[in-house]
């Protein structure tokens, strides 16, 4: 669906408020940065620099192209601003014609972008997890990706790299760095669930996987815009709910558990294969989803989780 003008700004403000209220751990991309990134879309769509703002039903957020467009505009913002008059001059001239007004709006938009914190479309950071005395290279990789289908995804992987012809990490100085093999694997796996990522990593030569955490942002449901009444009942006035998925596949989990009312169902054959892998590799899987709801939507969120048989933190947002 598409939003226009002031409606788009209002929707963005409501969605950003829910993101800011999330208070998530570092397993997720920083939701406050995402909120800032989101609000950077308000001015261009409200002032007509963008034709419209699309909302993807699966995530309840703008499509990756909108997020990426903000990043691209920021990359060129300083260069463009250097060729424009200052903001006050442009604002004073804005009344002269639509073209003048558009130039003033563009200046304001780019100036905002220069000061905004934006979420990267892709980032990979690797640190040594434990002292080098241990055999192999114990590493933690944190991979952020703006995925075309899943939106913002963060994969956090703890592994030990042993001898291998094509390792995933290699020593550099006192630390460790990612090899192209790790970057490629994580890039291709961002749309997979944590367990499948775990299995892909475990299949690599010399790799012992300890933990894979996959965190996602969304869906964001707002009454009047996108509200799944079949799940949540009738939309409360100004109600909103944001979900933040968290899948953990780890060898130190005492037991597996599903606490995500949106957890994908797995077919019987696939489930049997996974259970065999869990037994063989000694890991368990937990599906969780944190929720932030406006006060008017808290009851609906809790009722939904209860009906799904899951235990979920429902934080009260604005």
């Amino acid at each position, binding site marked *: 669906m598409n939003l226009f003008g002031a409606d788009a700004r209002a929707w963005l403000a409501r969605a950003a408020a829910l993101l800011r209220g999330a*208070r998530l*751990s*570092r*397993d997720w991309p920083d939701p406050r940065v995402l909120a800032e990134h989101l609000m950077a879309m308000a001015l261009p769509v409200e002032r007509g620099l963008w034709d419209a703002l699309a909302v993807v039903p699966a995530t309840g957020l703008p499509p990756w192209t909108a997020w990426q467009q903000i990043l691209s505009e920021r990359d060129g913002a300083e260069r463009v601003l250097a060729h424009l008059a200052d903001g006050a001059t442009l604002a004073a001239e804005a009344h002269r014609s639509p073209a003048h007004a558009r130039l003033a709006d563009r200046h304001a938009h780019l100036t905002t972008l220069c000061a905004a914190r934006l979420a990267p479309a892709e980032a990979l950071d690797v640190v040594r*997890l434990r002292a080098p005395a241990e055999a192999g290279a114990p590493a933690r990789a944190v991979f952020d990706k703006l995925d075309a289908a899943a939106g913002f995804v963060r994969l956090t992987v703890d592994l030990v790299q042993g001898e291998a012809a094509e390792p995933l990490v290699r020593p550099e100085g*006192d630390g460790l760095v990612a090899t192209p093999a790790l970057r490629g694997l994580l890039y291709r796996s961002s749309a997979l669930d944590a367990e499948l990522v775990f299995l892909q990593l475990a299949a690599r030569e010399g790799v012992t996987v300890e933990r894979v955490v996959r965190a996602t942002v969304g869906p964001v449901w707002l009454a009047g815009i996108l509200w799944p009444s079949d799940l949540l009942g009738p939309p409360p006035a100004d109600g909103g709910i944001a979900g933040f998925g968290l899948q*953990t596949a780890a060898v130190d989990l005492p037991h597996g558990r599903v606490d995500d009312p949106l957890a994908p169902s797995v077919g019987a054959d696939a489930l049997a294969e996974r259970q065999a892998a869990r037994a063989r590799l000694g890991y368990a899987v*937990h599906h*969780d989803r944190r929720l932030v709801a406006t006060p008017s939507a808290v009851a609906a969120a809790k009722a939904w989780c209860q009906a799904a048989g899951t235990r979920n933190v429902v934080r009260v947002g604005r």
Partner: protein
Amino acid sequence: MSQDFTVDDALADLVQQFADPFACLRELIQNSLDAGSPQVDVNVLWADGVVTLEVQDYGGGMDRQIIEQRLTRLFSSGKDGDLTKIGRFGIGFVSVFALQPDAVVVDTGRLGESWRVLFKRDRSFVRLALDEPLDGTCVRIMKALPEAELPALRARAREAVVKWCRFVDAEITVDGERIDRAFELADAPLQVCGQVGEQDVRVGYGEPWAGFYNKGLTLYEGPPDDSAPAQVRFAISGRNLEHTLTRDAVVHDAAWAQGMAEVKRLAAGPLVARWVQALRDREPAAFELLAGWPKGLSLPDAVRDAPAFTLAGGERRAVAKVQGKAVLRSTRADGLARVMAADGETVYVVEAPAQASALARWAEKATDVADGWLYRGDPPAAASYSALARAVEALLGARGAKLAAVHPVAYESPRDTARLPVIAAPAGATWAARSGATLLGQGFFDRRRDVWINVGHPAVQALLAVAEQAPEFAAYGLVKLFELDRDDARLATDLALFEAATKG
């Protein structure tokens, strides 16, 4: 379901080793950061005679296994060996008992489990399963406290959090006020930074001081040890730095040695170069540093020989050229300083207070030229002063003074322009400013001298108007002022009377 346990009595001795009981806030925040929380909120609450110190995080939380194996057991931290975490000894949480609380409540959740652990005063605890799902961990330390003591406790709590946690890479709030900030070396306007391995090192000049941090968490702040370079402050942040068990010192291991070696390298090279450049660029901090440099401590050679002080002609002189000498200084590169320089005097221009202080620190004596020197500027149009000048010449001549001529003149030394209406002086462009009475002799061997009427003086301007009607009276007034010594209190009185009489 509930179970009772007793925490090992050995904790008591260990807990008492924390010099500041409020250091428990640091331990709790450290635990929160290790749990992956990007934000920690510390609140001091009071109700019904009980104060609650609350530390809320949004990290991974604890399940039953973690509670039993790590939270409540000494020396069983699951962090041991994990380089992504700061804590090592598993004693962080038990430090809350240094506050001698009446109760400690820990609410936490993980993997669908939610728990409340209630510690009693004797450190025994009860673990309760909660119905409501939780994430993160909230620790509440509760203690009976009169309301009057609340402000002091609140201040101490805030002070402890700022001291230990201000540089952590997370949002830290105390009673809603955000206290975290970017890693920095304070009170060192001139500083350089370096990176060695995973350590961020900052070195600057100032009162000797050292700070060591692990992922921004303060390990130690205070005087450096004897191996540190003199007159240097430094801060090292690295996740490989370790604190001692009691958290009051840094372990002197290979990581510490690595950081100290970088401090010495920066202090010996880049920091000196930074100071030299700052002197070249006339940065106030460079001169403040010179001014405050301790007596008996030699300057780095490159600084001593760097162009520091500016002469009236624009040339720069090094500290080494000034050291131990008597010098003249001017607060601005005005005509006086320029002319004195042209006359062969060495005058340093100190346009900023820091430069003046630095010159005073290194020269044996620095005399301000404005205290004793004047500069005769371009002469004003003589015609308008001719009646007054002739009358003055006549009056002084009648008194037998050995007078050459009377000239109008504009002086450029602001202080004396206001103080002396008439000056007798030698013919040179600059001279020690004195009133004319002691210079105009009457004896046979006395030399004839010129007298200069300071046209910038308000009294002269007033007399000029009088001279149009009564030049003799105007000359009388001027010579009277001339006869009074500049330091004579009567000069001020006479000027005031004169001003009142001629007003209007």
